[in-house]
């Protein structure tokens, strides 16, 4: 939506391969793109949430990713310095939330969600289900409520599958 109305000036991402509109706008110079290795992106966000301004990783050493960045040797191997990444607003999709903002994600939908929830000034959560305080097992909470500022219940619970891949039953 924001791409359609040309309201995105810059994107920091690791993979944009399947968005044609994005590709067009980037290649024609209308949109700034900073590509990060996915693990570096995840760790930058984690560092942002954890108050760590920079860290060293061996990912990207010797490639365009390391250009203009400090490279330092530790125990004989080269590492590149990466900076933290923080946001003003995080939009998070959770499976279950309680009124205290505690979140539980489901299966591989956890992804970047708990990391990003911790790295924004304001974290808005869309939850499939909002439950009573006390009904989530404290041992099973993925994101503690301290990182969450607002929870809304999802009104569209039909989940779309981008790439449905199945085995036919006969083959079993």
């Amino acid at each position, binding site marked *: 939506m924001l791409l359609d109305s040309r309201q995105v000036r810059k994107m920091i991402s690791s993979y944009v391969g399947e968005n044609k509109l994005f590709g067009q706008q980037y290649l024609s110079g209308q949109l700034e793109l900073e590509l990060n290795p996915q*693990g570096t992106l995840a760790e930058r966000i984690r560092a942002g949430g954890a108050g760590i301004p920079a860290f060293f990783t061996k990912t990207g050493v010797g490639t365009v990713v390391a250009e203009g960045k400090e490279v330092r040797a530790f125990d004989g191997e080269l590492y590149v310095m990466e900076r933290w990444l923080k946001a003003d607003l995080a939009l998070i999709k959770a499976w279950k939330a309680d009124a205290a903002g505690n979140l539980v994600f489901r299966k591989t939908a956890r992804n970047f969600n708990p990391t990003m929830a911790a790295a924004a000034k304001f974290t808005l959560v869309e939850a499939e289900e909002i439950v009573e305080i006390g009904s989530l097992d404290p041992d099973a909470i993925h994101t503690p409520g301290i990182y969450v500022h607002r929870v809304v219940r999802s009104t569209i619970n039909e989940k779309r599958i981008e790439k449905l891949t199945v085995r036919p039953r006969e083959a079993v």
Partner: protein
Amino acid sequence: MPWNRDQIAARAALELRDGQYVNLGIGIPTLVANFIPTGIEVILQSENGMLGMGPFPLEGEADPDLINAGKQTVTALPGASYFPSVDSFAMIRGGHIDLTVLGAMEVSAKGDIANWAIPGAMVKGMGGAMDLVAGVKRVVVVMDPSISTAHPKSLSGASCGSREPAWWISSSLTCVSRLATRFAAV
């Protein structure tokens, strides 16, 4: 005849060893799961956040919340675990994954892998490939015949990093005659 995608994947699968933690990239590498040799059991990691990934679900049993890094619906095997992507890459960078199979458009003699952009023409992004190249113990590279022949030698600047790959398989035009019957091994 150059090898087709399945044949390339089947050859890559011969590199797997029993008990390994393995990450398969998108494309031909994903097909490697279909050709794991009998008697060998590996644990597949999907870098979006799971260990113990199983085959595609049966018809009617796909779960939108259970997908691989290529966004395909998958299943979880007994003993599987889910975690956030940041932990997934800690496993990768931290040297806990034994082997990865990655697709590449170009591979240099010293083991640079180019697979995420064609300057001026196409940009997809490196995804997790650079982290895998940097952190996984053994890197196996397969080349998609269609991509590598469409854009030969045009990828400088899009490298994922230098790393001696275990070996690579290619059926690009320049090597077809040689690779139709055997592998380029480095």
